[in-house]
């Protein structure tokens, strides 16, 4: 199993029957592949619908039906289209149960930076700032490090997407919960030792008393 699949599989377990979920672009979109068939999770697409389905078969693309990345998608039965104001009524209004997003940096206070690197890459925040503020649960899913450098920091130094809104972090090394006391490592990928996880993390990890193996 590759690293991304480990992460996506673990995130999928956080979702519950009936949840409304918004997945960020990249790795987070993979989470949809690991939802049990008998579970009713509806994916919201911030460009204006709920019921985001799989990519269409080749040749069956519909230019009127794309996701927030502009890629052709489908809509599942029971889905619905709406305008951008309604889309963010859903998001900002607390009607999204969970959002899964990638990160450039996340820190022990639950701060998140994922929308710009000053002077270099400035894609814009898109819907991320609203999602992070509005979703009931904010799950960061990402590789633990970038080019060997920690992404889980004591304090983000890139411009923030939102302050103190992250609830949990899932990486290939384990699962961390954001608490008032700091980041608590609650699950660990048995391929790694606690020491290795800490070494790859700038923030000081609190190790849960009942640290479990990561469920995947």
């Amino acid at each position, binding site marked *: 199993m590759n690293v991304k699949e480990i992460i996506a599989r673990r995130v999928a377990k956080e979702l519950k029957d009936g949840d409304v979920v918004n997945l960020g672009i990249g790795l987070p979109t993979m989470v949809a592949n690991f939802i049990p068939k008998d579970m009713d999770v509806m994916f919201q697409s911030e460009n204006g619908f709920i019921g985001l389905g799989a990519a269409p078969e080749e040749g069956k693309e519909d230019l*009127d039906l794309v996701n927030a990345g502009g890629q052709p998608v489908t809509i599942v039965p029971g889905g619905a289209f*709406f305008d*951008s104001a309604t889309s963010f009524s859903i998001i900002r209004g607390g009607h999204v149960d969970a959002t899964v997003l990638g990160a450039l940096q996340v820190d022990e206070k639950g701060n998140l930076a994922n929308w710009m690197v000053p002077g270099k890459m400035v*894609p814009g925040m898109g819907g991320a700032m609203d999602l992070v503020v509005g979703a009931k649960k904010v799950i960061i899913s990402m590789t633990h490090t970038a080019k060997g450098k920690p992404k889980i920091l004591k304090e983000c130094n890139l411009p923030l997407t939102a302050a103190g809104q992250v609830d949990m972090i899932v990486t290939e090394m384990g699962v961390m919960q954001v608490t008032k006391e700091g980041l608590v490592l609650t699950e660990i990928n048995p391929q790694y030792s606690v020491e290795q996880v800490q070494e790859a993390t700038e923030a000081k990890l609190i190790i849960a008393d009942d640290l479990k193996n990561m469920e995947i």
Partner: protein
Amino acid sequence: MNKIVTLEEAMCHIKDGMTIMIGGFMAAGTPEKFMDALVEKGVKDLTIIGNDAGWPDRGIGKLLINKQAKKMIASHIGLNPEAGNQMNAGALEMELVPQGTLAERIRAGGNGLGGVLTPTGVGTIVEEGKQKIEVDGVEYLLEKPLKADIALISASIADKKGNLYFNKATKNFNPLMATAAEVVIVGVEKIVEVGEIDPNDVMTPGLFVDYMVEV
């Protein structure tokens, strides 16, 4: 009250230096024919309000590639590298706005509201230079309404009174922008007789629409 005009007549309303809202989301729901016509017309120094910078060869991106904008207000420009390049080179003033805030600012502009009180952006650089208002102990940013001289939007179906129907994910910013500009021009895929759209299913009432072009 004939609202149906030719593409050429419609484009006459657009002049150098104007502020223009352009509907669509990554070119889905963007009036593509209007983009081509504006490139041909060559109007410049535009301030463009739109969700994104489109693609280099589709949507708003075409206008940027052709250097027709002096300023852009958008939420996401990552899929058109030209936008970032012009911004970093100082050739294009860029105001990046969280997407939900952008939608509400446009809605507020069309709605007669004085602004939007949103929690989005608090504690980030988005709050710089903005008034913060505390309501019942929670801090919100006061984000100002957006209005434009022209809105260029697209619709899937319209009747001759300008009642609009948007297919699937092409709604996005189109119904909002229809409320917030002095002159609203719609690129319509199919224009039908009055009465052919059920009044229950009208998504933008015709009163918001000034001109339509069948595209």
